[in-house]
């Protein structure tokens, strides 16, 4: 059953159609979850006993950092699927992830710097967490640069897939950097074994923002992948039917 689903989703016309239908089902919940998270985080959550209202940066910094890692895992997994099964849809999904991941890695770094200045007294420190996150940004940029430097799309897919798969080793390094080494960055407060260390009034808005950003990413990825698929499958017969359906629907 799972294999039937896998193969059907791997068919470009099926993916294009289903992705178009699914997008609003992720976009609207994303907007509502983020709205709830923003009200909870900016208005309802009490100030932190140490960081005061400065801690409210967490409601954009943590979701951006979460996306920077999750998008990379999705990109590397899709690239691996594309490489192993030679699946156009998987390569299109991987290629669509890169710009999203790079932009949210940049947001995670920038918001982290703005949070670091009042709390640590510096915008930047060559700390394990910050340095490995910066390396992640370079991996995304390297992936995009490699794709752009190769004209043949098949070769670009294969070469960039290898880079994405090798680079995935950086993801656990980023996550565990704060526990493996001495770091200025605080230890995980949500994604850890046992109970989270935040009170519910602070934690619930953060969970809403994390869920909202995840749903937003799925909607965005579906949207980008459809465009990427149209660009790649320019000579395919299914495009005429898909465009006719778009025009009427």
């Amino acid at each position, binding site marked *: 059953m799972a294999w039937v689903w896998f193969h059907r989703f791997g068919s470009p016309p099926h993916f294009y159609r289903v992705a178009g239908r699914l997008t609003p089902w992720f976009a609207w919940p994303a907007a509502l979850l983020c709205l709830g998270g923003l009200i909870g985080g900016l208005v309802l959550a009490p100030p932190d006993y140490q960081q005061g209202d400065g801690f409210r*940066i967490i409601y954009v910094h943590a979701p951006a950092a979460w996306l920077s890692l999750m998008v990379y895992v999705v990109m590397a997994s899709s690239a691996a699927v594309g490489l192993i099964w030679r699946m156009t849809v998987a390569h299109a999904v991987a290629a669509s992830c890169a710009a999203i991941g790079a932009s949210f890695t940049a947001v995670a770094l920038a918001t982290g710097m703005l949070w670091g200045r009042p709390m640590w007294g510096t915008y930047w420190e060559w700390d394990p967490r910050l340095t490995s996150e910066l390396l992640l940004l370079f991996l995304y940029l390297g992936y995009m640069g490699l794709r752009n430097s190769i004209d043949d799309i098949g070769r670009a897919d294969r070469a960039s897939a290898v880079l994405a798969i090798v680079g995935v080793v950086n993801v656990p390094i980023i996550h565990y950097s704060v526990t493996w080494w001495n770091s200025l960055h605080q230890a995980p407060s949500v994604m850890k074994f046992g109970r989270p260390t935040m009170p519910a009034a602070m934690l619930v808005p953060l969970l809403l923002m994390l869920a909202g950003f995840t749903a937003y990413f799925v909607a965005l990825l579906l949207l980008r992948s459809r465009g990427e698929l*149209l660009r790649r499958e320019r000579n395919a017969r299914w*495009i005429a039917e898909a465009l006719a359906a778009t025009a009427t629907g």
Partner: protein
Amino acid sequence: MLRFLAMGGYARYVWPCYVLTAAVVGLNVHWARSALRAAQAEARRRLASLKAAS
């Protein structure tokens, strides 16, 4: 309201984070929609030229 905007003295750090994140969220949506529309327009042009040629 002014107290809320002041963010306990951290306004110059908190609000730029929110503005930057909102801008990147919005820009990503704009880029994705523009890319899809451009790909659809290009595909329509190709189909029209193929139809005209045949």
